[in-house]
């Protein structure tokens, strides 16, 4: 295993510790807690009245558009991070290239703004 991967090994061990902690707490809980089933207990909470319809209603498409916009900016960040670590090495070429890239994406955001996608009413 290379030095490079060994650092991630530590992260992995820590992650497994976290999983083990959650598992342990859940296991301990299932040993200690009482279970006295009654059908009424397993009804969804809807402010005290019987639930109406299913819980999985249709959501507004608005959420989906925000998720799309997020993907746009997250992909942008993926390109900006490598550039940011080596700004000096890329020099003017990198700066102008990144400037054009960001302006194009900013235009995308402006278009979404103009189309009133960002209005949450």
């Amino acid at each position, binding site marked *: 295993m290379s030095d490079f991967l060994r650092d991630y090994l530590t992260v992995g061990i*820590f992650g497994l510790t976290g999983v083990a902690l959650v598992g342990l707490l859940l296991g301990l809980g299932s040993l200690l807690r009482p279970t006295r089933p009654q059908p009424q207990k397993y009804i969804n909470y809807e402010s005290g009245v019987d639930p109406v319809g299913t819980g999985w209603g249709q959501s507004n498409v608005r959420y989906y558009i925000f998720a799309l916009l997020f993907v746009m900016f997250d992909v942008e960040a993926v390109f900006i991070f490598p550039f940011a670590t080596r700004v000096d090495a890329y*020099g003017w070429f990198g700066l102008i290239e990144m400037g054009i890239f960001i302006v194009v994406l900013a235009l995308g955001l402006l278009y979404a703004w103009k189309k009133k996608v960002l209005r*949450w009413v």
Partner: protein
Amino acid sequence: MFALDPLFSGTFDGAVFLIVLAKVVIAFALLLVSVLFMIWFERKLHADMSNRLGPNRAGPFGILQTLADGIKFFFKEDLLPDRADKRIFILAPFLSLVPAFLVFSVIPLGGVFTAEKQGIVTVFGRETYVQLADPPIGVLLILACSSIAVYGVMLAGWSSGSKYPLLGSVRATAQMVSYEAALGLSVIAVVMLAGSLSTHDMVMVQAGEGFGGILPRWNLIATGVVPFVIFVIAGTAELNRPPFDLVEAEQELVGGFHTEYSSIRFALFFLAEFMNTVTMSAIIVTLFLGGPAGPTFFGPALMWGPIWFASKLFLFLFMFVWLRATLPRFRYDQLMDLGWKVLIPISLGWMLLLASLNVAGDAGWNTFVVAGAAVLIGLVAYLMLAGAIATSARRREQAELEGSIR
């Protein structure tokens, strides 16, 4: 090229494995203790700020209250709703808590950050950093974990098969996703100055003195104002803490995404929330306030790293409680506007400004001229945008007015 943890550069023997295990245990214990402390501290401080006593029965100053609550959670009946998607319902707490855990692994906790020591300590004759791991992509790991945490919230709400959790989780997803973008973009300024994604290198860059020895070298102008403020705001929103706690607005959504969770499963979400608060404060300290780096006064120099780290961390924990006690909740459309129309454009603009200054400085141009020109361009763009918005608002009002007359 990368300054990897020197622990792994030699042979991989038993001593190394022991050190890794010891680090895992220490980091684990530290994190859990600080989370338990934070829960107590928040309740006590919030009580103080609203003129109440707060927990004061269990232990001195009620400090064992969290433990008592935790034990009580174990003895409560666990309810799994009939309509729930069982497997995902059980999976969701894992997805919430484990990423919160993982973030802590890249936080530098101590060490002497001078030019010769480089934050390296010697344990059992092996050199290592006082941080669990220092992967070369530390910052990306932090961002990735906060992205995965969104899954925990979203799946918890969806799998409940109930209305309040679904609404809460949908809100949470949109909010966290929006502020995630601002969070990532504001970190870029820090990355640019450090020239690296490793958290250890970032602390190293910020160690020492700046401004003629009066202030620490925290890049106060480049990152200390704009990216810092954006990061703190976006971080608060990412944590779903007040004033951005629309996700679990009690008056509208009951408990939000964890309405259907009970017993220890609920406790896990609660734990994850406070763990995220602690780790987010630790991230802020690492990225903007130099982490454990600071001046040393008396005694061994090694002692001061953790002291500085803990006191800076405490400052932000206090700030988060203070925000909760002081500010009313945002309205949802205001929240979205702030994220998309203010924070993201500003952080993008600031990043371009810093990059231009950096490149122009290398080319030997005058910094002030470049900064002035960049600010001027930004101002013109802002005025044009503001003008366009005002015009469209006026037109819309005009149209509505004409419509109402007819």
